[in-house]
C-alpha cells in the first residue's frame, strides 16, 4: 500500500491545474506578452521589435505567465480552502478552456 501524498502537495497540485488553464486562456485571448521571442534571431525582448527581426512569438510568454501564476496560487491557497473544492472542477475548468479555445480559433475558418 503506497503512502498517501502529503495534503499540502495535494492541494497545491489541485489549485495549480485549476489556475493554469484560466490564466493561459485569458493571456492568449488578450495577447498579454511577458516577453516576445524572435526565433529568426533567437532573441527575447520585453517590447515589440521592427519587422526586420522576423516573426515575433508570444507563445512562450503565455506559458510562463500561466505557469508562474498557477504555481503561486498553488503555494498561496490554504489547504483547508483547497480541500473544500469540488473535484469536478478539475475537469470542468480545462474542458471549458478547451471549448473556448476551439470556439475562439474558428476565427481562422471564417474566410
Amino acid at each position, binding site marked *: 500500500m*503506497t503512502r*498517501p*501524498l502529503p495534503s499540502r502537495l*495535494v492541494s497545491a*497540485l*489541485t489549485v*495549480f*491545474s*485549476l489556475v*493554469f*488553464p484560466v490564466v*493561459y*486562456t485569458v493571456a*492568449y485571448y488578450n495577447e498579454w506578452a511577458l516577453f516576445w*521571442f524572435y*526565433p*529568426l534571431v533567437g532573441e527575447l525582448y520585453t517590447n515589440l521589435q521592427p519587422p526586420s527581426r*522576423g*516573426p515575433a*512569438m508570444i*507563445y*512562450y510568454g*503565455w*506559458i510562463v505567465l*500561466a505557469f508562474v501564476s*498557477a504555481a503561486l496560487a498553488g503555494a498561496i491557497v490554504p489547504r483547508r480552502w483547497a480541500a473544500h473544492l*469540488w*473535484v*469536478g472542477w*478539475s*475537469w470542468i475548468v*480545462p*474542458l471549458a*478552456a*478547451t471549448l473556448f*479555445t*476551439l470556439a475562439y*480559433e*474558428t*476565427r*481562422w*475558418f471564417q*474566410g
Partner: protein
Amino acid sequence: MISAALLIIHGLASIVLIGAITHQAIMVWPAKHAEQPQAFFTRLRSLPQPSIYANTVVILYAANFFLGAFLYTSYRVDVRPYLEDTGLFLAAGAFETKEHIAVLGLGLLPAYWLFWKEPSRAGSVTARSYITLLLAFFVWWNFIIGHVLNNIRGLGL
C-alpha cells in the same frame, strides 16, 4: 536537419504517448455491456492496473510538449508564413488550436497525476475518468493535426 530529426523523435514519442493514454482512456471508459472475455477489445479494457500508465503518460507528455515547443520556432519561421502566403488559413488555425490545447494539457498533468496517485479521494473516480478522457482527446487532437500540417509542409528542409 536537426529540426527534421527532432520532429521524427517528436512523432515517435507521441506514438508511445498515444498508446499509453489510449489504453488508459479505454479502461476508464464506462463499459455498457458484458463482453466475451477473450475478445481483443475486452482484453484491451481489462489490463491489470491502469495507474501504472500515469507516470509514463506524464513523463511522455511533458517531454513531448517541450520538444514540440522547441520545434515550434521552426514552424513559426518556416511553415506558418508559407500557410499564410498560400491562404491555408484552415491549417494555420488548426495548428493554433494544437498550440493552445497542448498547453492546456500540460496544465492538466498535475491534477491527472494526482487523481491516479490518490484514488481514494471522495468523488474522484468520475473526475479521474473525465480528466483521462480529456487528456486523451488532447493527445489525439494534437497528433492528427500535427500529421496533417506536416503533410502540408515539413520542417528542417
